[in-house]
């Protein structure tokens, strides 16, 4: 930056502006992190691992015994625990079969109804088990976020993790909290794990044998399950293991690829049924060998939506399965409508196998599974479960001492703590008196039932409170975060005002007279109104779920207003120069066409994906195409790629038609384009792709990544130095600019600067579009083209420096187009619509970081495209207005004028939305939907903020670099050009 020659007339120099903006952004980042730390806390948990004390009531201090216990060998420990608990294990061995993403509805039906016919027919063995009473099935409601890792943690530990667990889904690390696997390990169990390698990441050292498969090739639905089943026959024959974990990923992959109604779903269910049959028949055979037999527990970690996604909290996603299959029979009339929570699995398994219940468990036991125990034993396990929950409650209420409450039957509990104490004491007292009169009690009598009822009262209310409790939010932290964000927001908005005062009109000023100034207001008012409307709409959960409507509607309205404005100025009487009538009218016509193009593309984009949450099932273009089969999608994809390539090539070659760059640009643009085309033609079509073609496709994608980045970076660094500085008489960039002021014609450096930015901008936009065409789902390739058309048409419309339209309005319009396009690509405010499958294209080894970046690229395709196009936008503006009148080649001033609005407006708008939404989230912290609607939306808002930072940083850096290059060139060759 050429800061030496910055004029003093302006109150806001380039350096000052940059520093203040960077400062504001830094404050914003700090505030945001502080707020997130405060709002999504890691819940206070009990540390350590349950041991001896879990067989004693709370308050008992077993330190003297635990010394001995820790030195006991595993089998001694087992018998010691068994002696203490007084309940023998119901089973010896456990086969835990996890079917990833299987909704319980497929097996048990919904609302007491039978499951759908094809699913019943697909799982004949499982259905017969249920009918015979050999199995008990539960709808085990999973807690959001419904993604694999937090759900596995919930199943083995019984604890509901914090919301941010979802962020670590792809970054699994060893699970250190108390959990069943650790407890089994201490018992000396031999454990075998086959399936999803998430287990290996959670428990790296626990398994005797394991074969992890990766959930990595989402398109693969066959091999991933074959890799699990291939060991099954051997493992079932061997008797050395006590716990066998099978985690089948195929069904989840089927869902991700084709939704619930995929053709592959029925065969996959049949395959699972075969596995269940195989395991169950082998457990019956080995029952004589082992004493008590093997329990087969079939669970799913989460369900799936109609389209096969998961992550949110709808019934379809949280409806996971827990199916207990015994070699013998449960003394229980099987129902298919049992309801439980996923966290209950941990407590149930712990009590079934006689291990201590994990410390942070919030689940309650599933009583139907224990019907083979005697009454006293059943009461004992209820008691054990109650002691554990009471201990957890004591961690929440530090001064919880049940003795000090009176608990008169008439008195109403004043707070939760007292209520829990009373419920517990009530149950405990009943149990004590029942034990004391052991002689007179009858089997299954009223006494017994009232004790069970009392215990279940306590367990249910405590479990509900513990799993749904409002976590303490440190108000100080939250206030600090919001204050910092408010500060940075006001800095940014203040900067915008000061900047706007310095340069009241971004465009040409020779047309400005009073009347025109007055006329230009409707669009500005509307832009501001949109901000308020959006902020207001964020307060309603339905509006957050259906946010796409408001963006599409507002963007379309904005462009209709601009259309009206164009019509206003199109009358012959308005024109100032009579000789220009013809060209003006042509210009005005082309502007109308460009707006019509924006509106049409916007309407098609809106219709492409229905979007949202509640009305996602309504028909839209993408569903229509998917029903029509793969051929139309494929042809649309090809058309989009060819059009994107030809539009880009035409635009880049137009101004350079006779220069030596033609060949270079053609190669740069055509070669990666051709590669992407090849990739789509050959490798993207089949779900049933073989491993070898997968490998080729991965290499291909990697090559494309490398090429695109090399070309983009190469162009970015080289172009400013090699752009020819012709004193051109021919109208360069004639496609974008008609009115070329004499000043800019006479200034080759400015021309070169402008051309460089234009080329760099196009290169980035083109690379970004190609990348999207490669990564997005095939159905989304047309929207990418439409987005490009929208943005180009907008830039075309804005390029002629209309005196009525202020520059900030134009940048804001581009930003809105980008945000509307974000929803047009099928994104919503739930985590379920993130395209996970695309994030693994071209990744050959599992890397959280790279997959995360790809996911970000796919999700934020549209806003980022809008930001990158700011470079083209800058180059398409008439730069003569940017030149400092006193010092013609003041690059600092030029830079400030170029990127001031394109950087400040997105940052300012985003900071307003960020602050507003943060406050909304804080106000809604007790709302029913805070975890399912508002928090995911907040994650999106944070990610949008990151996207804006990256985009504006890139635009600013690219422009600054070009500016510096030209400043240097001027210093070198200064005296050639001065003449």
């Amino acid at each position, binding site marked *: 930056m050429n800061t030496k020659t910055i004029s003093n007339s302006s109150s806001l120099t380039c350096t000052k502006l940059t520093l203040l903006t960077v400062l504001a952004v830094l404050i914003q980042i700090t505030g945001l992190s502080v707020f997130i730390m405060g709002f999504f806390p890691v819940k206070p948990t009990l540390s350590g691992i349950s041991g001896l004390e879990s067989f004693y009531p709370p308050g008992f201090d077993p330190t003297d015994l635990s010394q001995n216990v820790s030195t006991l060998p595993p089998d001694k420990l087992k018998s010691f625990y068994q002696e203490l608990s007084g309940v023998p294990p119901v089973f010896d061995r456990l086969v835990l079969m996890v079917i990833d993403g299987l909704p319980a509805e497929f097996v048990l039906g919904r609302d007491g109804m039978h499951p759908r016919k094809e699913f019943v027919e697909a799982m004949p063995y499982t259905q017969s088990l249920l009918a015979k009473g050999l199995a008990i099935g539960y709808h085990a409601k999973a807690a959001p976020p419904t993604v694999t890792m937090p759900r596995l943690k919930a199943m083995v530990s019984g604890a509901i993790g914090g919301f941010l667990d979802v962020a670590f889904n792809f970054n699994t690390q060893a699970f250190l909290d108390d959990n069943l696997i650790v407890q089994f390990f201490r018992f000396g169990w031999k454990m075998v794990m086959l399936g999803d390698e998430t287990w290996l990441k959670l428990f790296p050292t626990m398994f005797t044998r394991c074969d992890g498969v990766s959930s990595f090739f989402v398109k693969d639905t066959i091999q991933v399950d074959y890799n699990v089943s291939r060991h099954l026959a051997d493992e079932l024959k061997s008797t050395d293991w006590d716990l066998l974990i099978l985690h089948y990923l195929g069904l989840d992959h089927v869902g991700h690829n084709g939704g619930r109604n995929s053709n592959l779903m029925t065969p996959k269910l049949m395959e699972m049924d075969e596995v269940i049959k195989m395991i169950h028949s082998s457990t019956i055979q080995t029952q004589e060998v082992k004493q008590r037999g093997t329990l087969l527990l079939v669970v799913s970690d989460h369900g799936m939506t109609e389209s096969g996604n998961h992550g949110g909290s709808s019934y379809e996603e949280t409806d996971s399965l827990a199916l207990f299959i015994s070699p013998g029979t449960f003394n229980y009339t099987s129902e298919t409508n049992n309801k439980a929570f996923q966290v209950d699995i941990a407590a149930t398994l712990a009590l079934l196998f006689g291990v201590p219940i994990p410390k942070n468990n919030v689940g309650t036991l599933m009583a139907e599974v224990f019907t083979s125990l005697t009454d006293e034993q059943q009461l004992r396990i209820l008691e054990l479960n109650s002691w554990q929950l009471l201990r957890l409650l004591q961690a929440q209420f530090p001064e919880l001492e049940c003795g000090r409450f009176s608990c008169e039957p008439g008195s109403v509990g004043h707070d939760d703590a007292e209520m829990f104490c009373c419920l517990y004491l009530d149950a405990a007292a009943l149990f004590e008196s029942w034990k004391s009169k052991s002689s007179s009690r009858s089997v299954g009598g009223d006494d017994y039932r009232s004790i069970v009822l009392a215990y279940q009262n306590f367990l249910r209310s405590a479990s509900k409170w513990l799993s749904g409790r409002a976590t303490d939010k440190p108000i100080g932290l939250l206030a600090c975060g919001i204050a910092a964000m408010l500060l940075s927001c006001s800095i940014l908005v203040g900067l915008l005002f000061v900047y706007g005062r310095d340069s009241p009109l971004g465009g040409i000023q020779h047309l400005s007279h009073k*009347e025109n100034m*007055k006329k230009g207001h409707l669009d500005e008012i509307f832009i501001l109104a949109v901000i308020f409307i959006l902020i207001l709409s964020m307060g*309603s959960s*339905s*509006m957050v*779920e*259906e946010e796409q*409507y*408001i963006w*599409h*509607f507002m963007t*379309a*309205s904005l462009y*209709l207003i601009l259309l*009206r404005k164009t*019509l*206003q100025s*199109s*009358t012959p*009487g308005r024109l100032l120069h009579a000789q220009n009538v013809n060209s003006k009218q042509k210009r005005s016509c082309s502007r109308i066409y460009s707006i019509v193009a924006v*509106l*049409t593309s*916007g*309407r098609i984009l*809106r*219709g492409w994906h229905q979007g*949202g949450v*509640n*009305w996602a099932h*309504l*028909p839209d273009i993408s569903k229509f195409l998917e029903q029509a089969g793969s051929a139309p999608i494929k042809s649309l994809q090809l058309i989009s790629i060819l059009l994107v390539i030809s539009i880009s090539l035409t635009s880049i070659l137009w101004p350079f038609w006779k220069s030596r760059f033609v060949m270079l640009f053609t190669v740069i643009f055509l070669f990666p384009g051709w590669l992407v085309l090849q990739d789509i033609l050959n490798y993207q079509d089949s779900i049933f792709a073989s491993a070898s073609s997968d490998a080729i496709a991965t290499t291909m994608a990697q090559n494309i990544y490398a090429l695109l980045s090399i070309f983009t970076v190469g162009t970015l660094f080289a172009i400013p130095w090699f752009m020819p500085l012709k004193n051109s008489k021919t109208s360069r960039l004639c496609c974008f600019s008609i009115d070329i002021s004499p000043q800019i014609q006479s200034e080759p450096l400015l021309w070169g600067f402008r051309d460089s930015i234009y080329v760099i901008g196009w290169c980035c936009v083109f690379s970004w579009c190609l990348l999207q065409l490669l990564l997005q789902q095939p159905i989304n390739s047309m929207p990418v083209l439409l987005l490009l058309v929208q943005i180009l048409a907008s830039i075309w419309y804005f390029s002629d420096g209309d005196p009525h339209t202020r520059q900030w309005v134009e940048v804001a319009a581009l930003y809105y187009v980008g945000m509307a396009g974000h929803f047009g690509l099928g994104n919503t405010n739930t985590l379920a619509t993130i395209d996970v499958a695309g994030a693994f294209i071209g990744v050959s080894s599992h890397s959280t970081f790279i997959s995360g970046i790809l996911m970000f690229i796919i999700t934020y395709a549209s806003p980022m495209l809008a930001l990158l196009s700011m470079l083209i936008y800058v180059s398409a503006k008439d730069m003569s207005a940017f030149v400092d009148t006193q010092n013609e080649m003041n690059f600092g001033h030029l830079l400030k004028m170029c990127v001031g609005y394109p950087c400040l407006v997105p940052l300012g708008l985003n900071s307003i939305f960020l602050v507003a939404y943060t406050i909304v989230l804080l106000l809604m912290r007790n709302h029913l939907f805070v975890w399912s609607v508002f928090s995911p939306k907040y994650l999106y808002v944070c990610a949008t903020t990151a996207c804006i930072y990256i985009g504006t940083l890139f635009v600013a850096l690219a422009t600054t670099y070009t500016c510096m290059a030209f400043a240097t060139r001027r210093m070198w060759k200064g005296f050639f050009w001065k003449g």
Partner: protein
Amino acid sequence: MEEKKKKQQSINPLETKNDPVLCISPAKVLVLHLICGLGLASGFWAAHYFYSINLVSNPAETLRLIWIVEASVVILLYSLFRLNPDKCSYSRAVVGALLGLPAGAIVNALGAIVLGAPVGLQHFRKTVHWSLLMSVFTLVPAASVFGSSWTDWHRIFAQTKPIGPVDYMICLPAHGAVIGAWFGAWPMPLDWERSWQYGTSQLWQSIVRSASRISNTNQSWGRSEELS
């Protein structure tokens, strides 16, 4: 809004063009709008009593009935105020308005579709009748009065600079209808548990659009009466 327009008018006093300001008394305007309002009301009444349909149960049929009634009233009345009664006969103005009706319907339908109205065969009839009704409110009066005078159209619709009572008589209801329709098309994700909220969001939007258009039109009529 009116004040702003008045101001504009005073800042830009009558442009130096042929000024077709007809002398028209406030009473006449009042009667005209009263009859238009009665036409609208009678459309609803006829729909309710003769066919027992309404906007919620049978949107397309009700809209058709209303636009037919309202169009006949509007065309016949506004043609009385045609710009050049000497050059242009009454019947010619009526024919012009009849030609303007489908043209205006196309413009309105395109606007509605751009703002999100559904496209598809099952929605086609609703869209057609709705846009014809909108055309009756927006473009048909102008077509009756101005014929094909481009400068007048431009003055009213692109620049919103009405001069004189006749201009206001056309301009305000038209803009009121458009603004009302725009507010009616506002995205409203309700909970849909009531019968009146029934239907797809787009259908609901079109219903609200018609309802609030009517109220807004009435409001703007009120305004124009005050002005004139």
